[in-house]
């Protein structure tokens, strides 16, 4: 057993490392001041174009779509190396990670030709329009309508939790095209122009104070039938292609989130409620141990997956435990550490200690992470049903025509 690269992997890593040293030098440190949106977009486009020219975009995509035709390990190695820098990241992750693979898997030759290479080059930004106010965990409960009108479709409805909708040029949208069919059957997916008349994007302010998502309203938005992805009524199947990619993307502990080291450092500097340094208190040490076991356990579980990928095998089902462990551990660690800091853990803003402020951010962010990309509850369902083979939940609306099911 070892954690080493194969000779081929090591060679690729060295090549990536050398290229980054030369081309990402300006991103070695985080920007002095956080980028505002227009500057973030400008930086993202510059960086994407640079990567593209050097052959570090679409690493796992087939060559005929402009990709490099390499293995998932190559993509992972590139990602590991780039993550040592503070490069602008995120703007393209949904578009290139989820939307465009859906486009080249299910779109016709015309839309592939029109959209794929521009997206890969970073000239156009994409978003994914799936969730709705009444379609969250129950994602197939989509109510946004698309009605055919000649060789066009007319879309009316509302989407929510759409990352980067305000910065996007195009999106993939799941709509209901036949409400008389059961809910998984009457869906169809389209490519939509986010600048088209009738599209309105409104930012959502989260409880954390940040604003990473949007609501998107469709009011008589017209889409050509050529921009349909997959057959009419096959939207659920197409959406599953997209979500498969999401499950790989949403995994380990977010980079910004404090871990057990933060608690160790904090505990060396404060007294325990019962007296004496907190680092010597039994409950604090138990918490450090539990946090290590959870966070490091997920890291090691990911290494099991990488070992499988490195051998050209499919990773085992144990990957499914990642997010459900990481998000709750992040919340528990933050609340424990803030509790340990007493009133100082509660004071925010300019007067806050920077380390504690990070923990506060992590505490607020964790509440969202436990929901995003599958709630703790849905993920436990998935483990129980797909890994352990337990039967599915009771779904009274599963075979009922959507327009006759209870929806209130």
């Amino acid at each position, binding site marked *: *057993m*070892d*954690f*080493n*690269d194969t000779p081929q*992997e090591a060679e690729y890593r060295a090549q990536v490392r050398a290229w980054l040293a030369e081309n990402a030098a300006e991103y070695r440190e985080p920007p002095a001041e956080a980028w505002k949106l227009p500057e973030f977009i400008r930086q993202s486009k510059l960086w994407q174009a640079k990567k593209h020219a050097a052959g570090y975009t679409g690493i796992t995509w087939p060559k005929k779509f402009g990709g490099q035709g390499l293995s998932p390990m190559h993509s992972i190695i590139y990602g590991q190396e780039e993550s040592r820098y503070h490069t602008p990241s995120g703007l393209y992750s949904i578009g290139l990670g989820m939307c465009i693979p859906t486009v080249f898997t299910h779109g016709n030759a015309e839309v592939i030709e029109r959209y794929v290479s521009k997206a890969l080059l970073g000239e156009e930004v994409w978003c994914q329009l799936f969730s709705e106010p009444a379609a969250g965990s129950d994602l197939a409960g989509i109510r946004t309508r698309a009605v055919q009108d000649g060789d066009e479709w007319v879309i009316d409805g509302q989407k929510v939790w759409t990352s980067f909708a305000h910065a996007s040029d195009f999106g993939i949208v799941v709509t209901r095209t036949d409400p008389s069919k059961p809910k998984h059957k009457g869906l169809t997916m389209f490519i939509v122009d986010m600048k088209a008349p009738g599209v309105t994007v409104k930012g959502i302010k989260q409880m954390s104070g940040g604003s990473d998502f949007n609501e998107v309203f469709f009011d008589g938005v017209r889409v050509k039938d050529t921009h349909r992805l997959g057959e009419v009524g096959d939207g659920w199947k197409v959406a599953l292609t997209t979500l498969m990619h999401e499950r790989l993307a949403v995994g380990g502990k977010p980079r910004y989130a404090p871990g*057990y*080291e933060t608690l*160790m450092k904090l505990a060396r500097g404060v007294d325990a409620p019962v007296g004496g340094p907190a680092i010597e208190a*039994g409950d604090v*040490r*138990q918490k*450090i*141990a*539990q946090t*290590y*076991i*959870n966070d*490091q*356990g*997920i890291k*090691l*579980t990911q*290494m*099991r997956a*990488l*070992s*499988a990928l*490195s051998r050209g095998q499919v990773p085992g089902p*144990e990957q499914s*435990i990642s997010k*459900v*462990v990481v998000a709750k551990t992040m919340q528990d660690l933050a609340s424990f550490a803030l509790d340990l800091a007493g009133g100082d853990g509660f004071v925010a803003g300019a007067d806050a200690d920077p380390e504690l402020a990070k923990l506060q951010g992590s505490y607020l962010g964790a509440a969202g992470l436990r929901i995003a990309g599958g709630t703790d*509850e849905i*993920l*436990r*369902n998935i*483990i*129980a*049903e797909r*890994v*352990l*083979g*337990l*039967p*599915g*939940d*009771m779904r009274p609306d599963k075979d009922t025509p959507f327009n006759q099911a209870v929806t209130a």
Partner: protein
Amino acid sequence: MNFDFSDEAKALGEQAMKLLGEKAGPARARAAMADGAPAYDAALWAELAALGWTAARVPEAHGGLGLGAEESAQLAEAAGHHLACVPLVSTLIATEALVLAGSGEQQARWLPGIADGSVIAVAAWSEPGAVTPATVKTQAKDGKLHGVKAPVADLAGAHLAIVAAAGPDGPQLWLVDVAAARVEPVETLDLVRRHGRLVLDGVAAEPLGTPADYQAWLDRAAVILAWESIGTAAAAMQMTVNYAKTRVAFGQTIGRYQGVKHKCADMYIKLELARAHALHGLAMIGSDGAELPQAAAAARVASLDALQYCAEESVQLHGGIGFTWESDCQFYYRRSRTAVAALGPRGWWADRLVRALEQRNRAAA
């Protein structure tokens, strides 16, 4: 990246799971609870020795196969899964001590017998009144041990005991010929695996390695025992999942209810976290890696957590039938206590994990 068992170790594990699935398991464990039942299944012991399981970890120079801790882990997992009534895991962790710290002469004297199955070896660190491996009262004086070790797993029928006792430089391991000591049975919560009391009133003993070797052995033993617990926990989970697929309440199988299925998912989550750390422990043993202390302690704590959770919730999800004497749930439930007693409590190991992390931080600073 090659963070997985070797194909050879996996093959041995499959062989062990298959054989023990046929020749061990809950029904055999139930038979072993009976009054007058033998201390262990001698026929099964002879069969697995003939297959080379006890020889796996023994170096070739001493009649063994010269395999690694990965193979021991696979055997321990299978033994734990099927509640095998043989002193296999005890002998495996004792072998680990001899391989790690034994002199050439000590290895030559004991390892060939372990390899061919004629020597059963056990580890004796526990003492009345001593909660952790760090606190031992048994003392060595002029090459003789004075004290009492109990409860010692698989002591009845054992030939060699690896004993933790205080020497001039602190607690360390000693080799004791069991025939020279007094052995008494000790009743424990585990009605399947026999435990005993080793009375040492001036019994001759040889030091096995150094106090540092004792600490290194604790880490290695913790990793092997973690795999045993993972096996037992997985069996409890599997039995519970199977039951949830067939038991009907309120007109449907109970596995459909989230109150049931989410507990099953949590069993799986705890098991996979334990597996990840226990695999890390094996990687560190195999490479003499500096992260062994933290990996071993994390494996120990995570595996105890997984076993306790799976055992407790397995009774709970079986409902009333799970609380009966006739249900197999009690084997896993009781075994979760055996696992704690085998090498010291969860809290001590969690603290040892943090000490390992602190030491690493100091080394990095």
